[in-house]
């Protein structure tokens, strides 16, 4: 479980996050949603430690990330896996080496054990016969899957996904969403997904946090989101034509 408390972040005069608190449960995807520029990705970066909040705390199963020394931070980070918006695959390595990378650097596993684990993870994300391909030779959806495989290869306790569906067609987006949900449940890990895709929200939104202009305006599930009573959230949800037509019916 990840708990955040009073996260504040400003860049110069601009307040990006204002007093955000919340809890992200284990075993199911936790979504952070909101329009572009509301601070979703910055919040995610504050949680993983890529951006230090001005004020606030982040607890990983009770361990205070920012109060800890560099050893604790490294220890917590080695329990994390992250899928970046563009995949963030290493250009100079092929798919196999990309997925194997965390095992090479962070573990003392034997070569055949690593290979088994990599093949298991690639199969888990539905990729086969791509081991020798370079990132430039595979599609956007495949890059995301390789990114997920790399994120889970070292058995993380926490999985973070930044806009996993950006730039993907609806069908591939759905597959990625299902994959994230299945992985969270199967491996019982705490997953946080940042998205503005309503299909994802309605598909895997077991727990949703809505951000608006750097503030948390609403928290709930996909079943409550259509009747939240929050005008800004309604505007966000029903900006989607499909959702709007459903409301009209």
């Amino acid at each position, binding site marked *: 479980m990840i708990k955040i408390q009073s996260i504040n972040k400003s860049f110069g005069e601009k307040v990006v996050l204002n007093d955000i608190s919340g809890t992200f449960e284990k075993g199911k995807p936790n979504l952070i949603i909101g329009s572009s520029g509301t601070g979703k990705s910055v919040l995610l970066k504050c949680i993983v*430690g890529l951006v230090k909040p001005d004020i606030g705390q982040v607890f990983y199963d009770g361990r205070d990330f920012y109060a800890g020394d*560099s050893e604790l931070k*490294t220890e917590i*980070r080695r329990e*994390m896996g992250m899928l970046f918006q563009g995949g*963030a695959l290493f*250009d100079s390595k092929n798919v196999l080496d990309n997925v194997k990378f965390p095992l090479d650097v962070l573990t003392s596993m034997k070569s055949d054990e690593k290979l088994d684990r990599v093949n298991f993870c690639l199969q888990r994300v539905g990729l086969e016969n791509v081991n020798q391909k370079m990132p430039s030779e595979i599609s956007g959806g495949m890059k995301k899957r390789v990114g997920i495989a790399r994120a889970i290869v070292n058995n993380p306790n926490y999985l973070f996904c930044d806009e996993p569906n950006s730039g993907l067609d609806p069908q591939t987006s759905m597959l990625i969403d299902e994959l994230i949900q299945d992985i969270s449940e199967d491996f019982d890990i705490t997953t946080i997904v940042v998205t503005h895709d309503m299909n994802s929200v309605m598909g895997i939104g077991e727990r949703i946090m809505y951000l608006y202009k750097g503030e948390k305006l609403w928290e709930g599930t996909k079943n409550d989101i259509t009747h939240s009573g929050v005008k800004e959230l309604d505007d966000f949800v029903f900006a989607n034509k499909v959702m709007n037509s459903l409301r009209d019916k």
Partner: protein
Amino acid sequence: MIKEIGKYFIFLGRILVNRETFKTYYKLVLEECIAIGIGSIFLVALVATFMGAVTTVQTAYNMVSPLVPDYVISQVVREMVILELAPTIMALIFAGKIGSSMASGLGTMRITEQIDALEVMGINSISYLVMPKIIASVLMYPLLVIVAGVCAMAGGYIVGALVGFITPEDYIYGIRASFNEFTITFALIKAAVFAFLVSSISSYKGYYTQGGSLEVGIASTEAVTTSVIAILLADYSLAQILLTND
């Protein structure tokens, strides 16, 4: 300016903390050595050969007195090549080729979130990415300087003999006459210092790139410019420190 220098030293300090295992770096250093050393050897040899040839022609052109023996031409070429041309001019080329490549490579990794990916895995990205580049540069650049020195003197020999400014015997005699071994030590010290400056400054510029592909280009240009200035300042300082007789 002062803030930037401070940030650079903090960056250097972070290379040494939270390091990975020796095995991890060993492979990375070897890869960098191949990229830096083998990848630059042709350009270094080509530039050095022509540099030596031109230096010989120009020195011969200026030696108009019949009282000065011909072998002085190759003595002058030797001193110029060892003391300045091989370590310093090659360092400027090294900054243009390797420095810009380091800065753009790291800059691209930064803007495509590859560096963030390393950090999230709990890997010290500065140490993992930059230390092998610095070690490989400090190991390989002095070797390139030796290659450059040999090629430059060979270039002078070929041109001198072909054009007839100096006989091969005189050229070889001049190269060997009154030779001070310390000049080689001095050249190698300079080479190591320049390699450290180019690799660390270029890595620093690339690592802190912000924005998109345009900024990667800017970082690459800044890396070369700053490296060149640092090389020239270090060149003067080292000459002042190591070549004064007091």
